[in-house]
């Protein structure tokens, strides 16, 4: 009896170990595939222009021309663009994440009249590409409110719920948290806001970080809106600076790619900071009882 049990346990352990090895091999394989295009961009940033178009293509640059970066920084005002971008992104991220959490909470947990209607309106707004409302919004800002060459049209929308996608994401996460948690708190006499701040928010912290990251990336890449609302070059963001830079150099690809590599550094850094929070996870163990 005990022998059989032992044998089963042993084979199970062996199987788990096998599975782990297979997983690691698969992960490494896919990781190489995933990283390869990025490597391609990076190696291009260190080449001469003739080398870029050479055949057969080289996996590594001949000379590792880090001087491309120095040359790039002379023209590409990275720090200034970065500051400008942050002036837009930081308030948008904070406000967007916060208001999205409020709304997600209301939709996930609270009952109120008109919920279905507002929810439907909210979902409906996801179906509108940003480009759709671009024209009327632009006219509204410029002709209606007389705003021009300003960051407000880029920032202010994030004070309004941070976008339906993010509200939806938060709602889904709140819904996946057992209700028993807030019921326990309700019995202790906690109000709705208290439940939100002290129970829900800590529990969905990963989702909140994810939302902040999405807002960050969304703004980072939102070239079109930045382009139409910002006129003067001293207000340029990274995305605008990058297109401007590309236009200026036409097809000096090595420098363009150097600028590109510079411009994705902040995104990567933001991710690395954020990942500590959203992947370390939250243990709901034991809450079930």
């Amino acid at each position: 009896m005990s022998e059989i049990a032992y044998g089963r346990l042993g084979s199970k352990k062996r199987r788990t170990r096998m599975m782990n090895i297979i997983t690691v091999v698969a992960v490494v394989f896919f990781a190489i595939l995933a990283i390869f295009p990025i490597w391609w961009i990076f190696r291009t940033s260190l080449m001469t222009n003739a080398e870029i178009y050479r055949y057969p293509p080289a996996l590594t640059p001949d000379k590792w021309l880090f001087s491309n970066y120095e040359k790039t920084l002379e023209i590409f005002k990275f720090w200034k663009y970065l500051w400008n971008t942050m002036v837009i992104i930081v308030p948008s991220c904070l406000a967007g994440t916060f208001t999205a959490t409020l709304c997600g909470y209301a939709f996930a947990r609270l009952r109120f009249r008109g919920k279905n209607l507002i929810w439907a309106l909210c979902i409906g707004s996801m179906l509108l590409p940003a480009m759709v409302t671009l024209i009327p919004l632009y006219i509204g800002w410029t002709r209606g409110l007389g705003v021009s060459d300003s960051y407000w049209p880029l920032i202010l929308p994030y004070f309004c719920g941070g976008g339906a996608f993010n509200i939806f994401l938060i709602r889904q996460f709140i819904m996946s948290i057992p209700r028993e948690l807030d019921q326990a708190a309700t019995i202790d006499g906690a109000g709705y806001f208290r439940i939100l701040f002290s129970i829900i928010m800590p529990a969905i912290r990963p989702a909140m970080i994810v939302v902040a990251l999405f807002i960050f990336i969304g703004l980072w890449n939102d070239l079109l809106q930045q382009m139409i609302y910002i006129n003067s070059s001293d207000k340029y963001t990274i995305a605008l600076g990058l297109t401007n830079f590309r236009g200026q150099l036409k097809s000096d690809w090595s420098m363009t790619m150097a600028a590109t590599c510079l411009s994705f550094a902040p995104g990567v850094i933001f991710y690395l900071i954020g990942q500590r929070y959203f992947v370390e996870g939250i243990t709901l163990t034991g809450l079930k009882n």
Partner: protein
Amino acid sequence: MKTGKKIGVGLILAAFAMSAIGCSNNGGNTASPGTDATNTPAGSKTEKVKIVYSMWGSAEEGSTTQAVADKFNASQDRIEVEVQAIPWENYMTKLNTLATAGQLPDTGMLQEGGVIQWSGEGMLNDVSAMYEGSDSKPLDSLAYKHEGNTVAYAAANEILLLYYNKEMFDKANVPYPPAALDQAWTWDAFVETAKKLTLDKNGKHSGEEGFDSQSIVQYGTSVENLSWQLETWALSNGGGFYSEDGTEVRIGEEASVEAIQKVADLYLKDHVAPLSVGQTDDGIQRTIIAGTVAMATNGQWNIGTSLNTAKEEGLSYGVAVLPYMKDKVTLNTGGANVVFSQTKHPEEAMEWLKWYNSEENNWALISSGIWMPTLDKWYKDETFTRKWVENPNFPPYEEYKSAVVDYAQSDAARPAAWFYTNYTTDFNTLLGSVLGDVWTGKTTAKEAITKNLDALKAAHAGSK
């Protein structure tokens, strides 16, 4: 609990604070730092008229132009020009949105395809009067005409020509393409030469026994097939995109279709060209500079935008006139300088444009090879030509003079369609999409164009 609330409130406060910082310096609209200083020398007794001039280019290019404008501002006491630089990629989009918002500059550059269309929308002023009484006028081919009126002059002159890699020719022991128009190659001679210059990885030439078209390492040629440049070949074969007055579409004619098919066949049948689908604008980089193609057609601006740098890196290239099918043809083009009709000061705007358009004030762009002068004296008077071309940025004087300067003022040089007809952007976009499967050989030019001829005509009529 309390901490939770505090964090929430804190976040909101922080958010507001950040945005307040961000937006606090948004007061002035487009105040540029350079403008204040120039007011003083003139002694501002009378208020100067302020003109905003928009151009495509980087912020640095903008400040270079502003420095030129400052010279103008200091030279007289009536007009104050301020330069607004907008990246090339976004230029027309930006101007369109500015027009929608009623915030257009007074004057500025306009991309080729937009001039007649904007004029048709009543957005441009007539500039016919600009050169009245001047001794040197822009070349005739550089005036944008709408309903008989001159609505803009090109800011620069640009033409199409043939670039080639001298080393590849030397190695194959093949004579260089001709720089003189009267010796221009026929299309067949061009294709034959291209075959000699096409090599597979075993060193075989296209057309030779055992040649493997799947492993070509060096191509003989690459004919740029962006829609607007294709017009050259349609014209050269006795066809064209439009009739001479721009009222009718001629692309359905046998000669036009055949010309386009010949270009496609360079890849499909002759195996002398890499596949190119007319999508990107970096033809010269992909071919001559990359060192993968021996000859490539494109605009003369590439000398300034990319070939100069490549030359420093060791490339040895030459310039020649285009080959021809029946008639010798190249296209003239050039972005326009316009005066917007929303301006309150058309006179002043024109005065500035006229001053700015004289070559001395654009010297950086001209001497680098990106622009060619617009005034005829630079082409007709050799002392001016020498002043322009004898410069290390250019290929040898005789070669460039013959293949570019003389070519540009010869009978072969015809204005691109957007100088005289409307909706070229629509037409070219549609044509590009219609021809997509022709380059890969999925369909023939004849089939594709016949099938879409009505749509092409509708696009040309502006009622897509």
